[in-house]
Structure formats: structure tokens, C-alpha cells
């Protein structure tokens, strides 16, 4: 059980690397979908464990919500937005991929050093989970910074939230209602961002963030 969770949290980190090395918007969305799927599997495993050991179905319900929202609905929403809005295939990133991957590896290292100081408090496995989740958060943030298209920023934000969810799930977790509330908040945020991307496309004729530079100073 522990090794399974170890492996799944590692897979979430690897999938964020896969995200960084993707070149096209549809591959970002697929990478995010895969990451959410792994997260759902981890939640399912924990949920079943909780159900049999403590008799609480809450994590299992959370797993169902994660599947419905993050694996099915949000990628579909992003894909429809992307199809209606983007028709040019152009270079989307400021940094080329090998350098991005190296910087992400550096971010993982940074997380390790930061958590190293909390050694007495976090036991081995917990430190592992924290490190992976925090690295995913930083990688999501990095992804948001280095993409030129608005949808790239939305996907980066979603990956950041995925990282937080992993941390909430694999450490002592958050109260169940709060987790649900966070999911609903996330869904609303993505819907609103999607609507805004439409408006941006209407007003600016493209979703290139570089064009949004009129307000300065």
C-alpha cells in the first residue's frame, strides 16, 4: 500500500515533467488528464483503504468527484475552448524544452533542500509525498510563466492545484467538506477563465498573452 502510494505520487511528478516537455496545446490537456487520472487512482486506493479500515466513505466520494471534474469535464471544457479559439500552430514557449526540463529538475532540487530542514517533523514517506507535491506546484507555476498562450496559463494553474490536492490527499488531508469546496471553486475558476479566453479572442483576435500589454506603469 505504501509502495503503491509512493509510486503513484512519483508518477504524478513524472507526468508534470511530461507536461513541460509538450509542444502543443492538445498534448498539455492530455498530460493534465493523465495526471488527474493518476491522482484519482491514488484517491481511490486511499478511499478503499479508509472505507475498510475506518468505515468512512469520504475519500472515495472525493475520488469520484475528481474523476468527474478533473478527468472528464475540465479537459473537455478546455478542448472545446481551444478548438473554438486557436487555429494557428505556432511556437508557444519562451524557453526551449531541454532548458525547461533542466529548470524543473532544479526546482525539484530546491524543494528537497527546503523540506530537508523540516527533517525532525516529517517522517521518510511523508517527506517524500510533500516533496513530490510541492515540486508539482512549483513546476505548474513555472509552466504558467513560460507559455505564451492563455490556455497554457490555465493548464499551469490546474497542474498547480493538482499538486496541492496531492499534498492534501497524501498527508493528513483536509476536512472533507473543504476538499469538495476547493474542487467546486476550481471548477468555477476554470469555467470563468474559459469564458474570459473567449472574450480575449474576440477583442484581441488571438490568445497570445504578449498582446495584453496595454496597461503598463
Amino acid at each position: 500500500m505504501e509502495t503503491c502510494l509512493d509510486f503513484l505520487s512519483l508518477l504524478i511528478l513524472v507526468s508534470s515533467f511530461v507536461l513541460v516537455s509538450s509542444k502543443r496545446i492538445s498534448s498539455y490537456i492530455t498530460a493534465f488528464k493523465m495526471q488527474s487520472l493518476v491522482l484519482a487512482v491514488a484517491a481511490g486506493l486511499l478511499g478503499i483503504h479508509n472505507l475498510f479500515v475506518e468505515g468512512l466513505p469520504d475519500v472515495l466520494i472525493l475520488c469520484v468527484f475528481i474523476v468527474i471534474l478533473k478527468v472528464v469535464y475540465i479537459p473537455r471544457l478546455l478542448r472545446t475552448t481551444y478548438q473554438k479559439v486557436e487555429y494557428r500552430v505556432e511556437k508557444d514557449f519562451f524557453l526551449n524544452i531541454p532548458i525547461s526540463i533542466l529548470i524543473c529538475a532544479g526546482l525539484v532540487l530546491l524543494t528537497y533542500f527546503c523540506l530537508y530542514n523540516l527533517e525532525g517533523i516529517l517522517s521518510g514517506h511523508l517527506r517524500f509525498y510533500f516533496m513530490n507535491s510541492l515540486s508539482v506546484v512549483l513546476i505548474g507555476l513555472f509552466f504558467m510563466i513560460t507559455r505564451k498562450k492563455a490556455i497554457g496559463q490555465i493548464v499551469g494553474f490546474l497542474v498547480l492545484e493538482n499538486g496541492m490536492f496531492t499534498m492534501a490527499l497524501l498527508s493528513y488531508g483536509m476536512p472533507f467538506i473543504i476538499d469538495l469546496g476547493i474542487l467546486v471553486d476550481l471548477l468555477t475558476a476554470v469555467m470563468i477563465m474559459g469564458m474570459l479566453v473567449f472574450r480575449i479572442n474576440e477583442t484581441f483576435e488571438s490568445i497570445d498573452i504578449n498582446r495584453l500589454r496595454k496597461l503598463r506603469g
Partner: protein
Amino acid sequence: MNTVLYILIQLGVFVLLAPLVNGVIKKVKAFSQKRKGPPLAQLYYDLSKLLKKDCVISDTASWVFTAAPYIFLVTTLLAALFVPVTVFLQPFSFQGDIILAIYILALGRFFMTLAGLDTGSTFGGMGSSREMMIASLMEPALLVAVLTLGLHSGSTSVFAIMHKGMEGVPYLFHPANILLFAAILIILLAETARIPVDDPATHLELTMVHEAMLLEYSGRHLALIELAASVKQLFFITVLANLFLPLEVFIHTDIHTIALILGLGLYFLKVMALTLLVALVELYTVKLRFFSVPNLAAASFALAFLGFIQYFVVGR
């Protein structure tokens, strides 16, 4: 006495098994395309045919051209000696022998590159420069992976790493190992010139990397190089098989000969399984544009690096 036996068995297995691996890969690819494909022993027939033929050597070639095939074969076989086919054979091993093996392979590659440049043909030079670039990109990943394995088992000798693997399942499913397996798989694809790095079945010289260096070779030289390339492929597969899947832990018998035979049988099965894996990867990916190969190298490095970090976090 033991050493001589070891060398004989090791070399024999490698030289005899290597062409079969190639045959299996081609057969699997043919089946997926609903063809019958060449017979499994095709590379054996090719090698015996080539050994009987004459060599045609260009006038402008120097001694490097004629010496390179021999050096390539010798270095590959020498490197293969460091990776025992089964843990029941007593090899000559010492600290750092895996790193020595990697750099002996690099020596062979160096001479092949020179030979590609030697004839003065454009395609040879192009293949050489590409081969060098890919090799230099893949090297950090390979070293980080190997060093992590060494750290994990306390020594960088292959035999010691294999012995550590005999501890069983906790070692196998350590998260670091899974990542390193993936990293070394990508390096295997790059070093043995397989899709997604280089298509071995292509006839378009502009897309060749490894084949371009061999364009000028014929006769017994070509036979030696083909054999050496397949032995190098088997070397990497053996690394994957024996360092990451030490299934010999399931053999519990005291009689050494029976253990040896069972070990060899298990090795054969592992190699076939991994060959199947390589063939499947070749089927389901496409050849990358050459300037996208650094992306693949960076991905492999990231995986190896993550394996390294995970080893530190989770501990021994």
C-alpha cells in the same frame, strides 16, 4: 580456471544470442504489419554470407578504416564481459567496472566515428557528427542512472549491484529503480539507433544516423560491425535485465551447475521479454526530428535525476 570458464560462457552467450535479438525485433514488427517477415535466424545467414565476401575499400581511406571494425567488435565484447549474464557466474569484477564498460563502448564509438569521416563521403561525415551529438547528450543521463544504482547498492561494480538485487521485492519496487529503468530504456533506444532516435530500416541517407557511418563498409568488415552493433544492443538489454529484474532470487538450489543452467534459461526469458518491449516501443512511436532529440535526452536526464533524488529522500 573459473575465469576462463566465465569468459567462454559469457562471450559465447553474447555472440550467439545477439543476432537472435535482432531477428525477434524484425519478426514482431513484421507481424504487426500483417507480414511474415524475415526468418528469425536472418542475421546469422547475413553474417555468414558477408564473411565470405570481398572487401571493397576506397582509395582515400587510411588504416583507421580497416582497423575500426575490429576495434569496435573488440571493445564491445570487452564491455560485455563486465555484465555477467547470470549472477551464479563468478566474474572478474571490481569497483567502477560499469563506468569502465560505458567508456570502453565510447572508445569503440569514437573509432567508428573516425571511420565514417575517413572515406571523405558526405553522408559518412554527417552520420558521424549526428552520432557524436546524440552520444554526448545521452551521456549525463546514463552516468546519473548508473551512479544512483551504485549508491543504492553501495558499490559501482555490476556484480555487487546484481547481488543487491537478490534482496528481492523491496529493492525491485523502490521508486528510484522504476525511474532509472525508464531512463536507461530511453538511452538504449538512442545508443542502439532505434526509433524514436534513428530508424534502422531506413534507406534514405539524410535520415540516417548510425547507418550513415556504415555506408562505405562491405564484406567481412561489415559483418564484424553488424555483429558488434547487435552485441552492443544485447549489452544494454542485459544491463536492464540483470540490474533491474534480478529474478534469480527465485532459484533456490545448492547444486551450482543446475543453478547456472537455470540462471541462463531465466536470462534468455528476460532478454526475450525486454526485446519484445523494445519492439513494441519501436512500433508505437515515430522517429523524432533530429533537433527534437535533445528533448528526449532531457527527458531521460530528468527521469534519471528524479531517480537520484528519490533515492536520497526515501533512503536506503
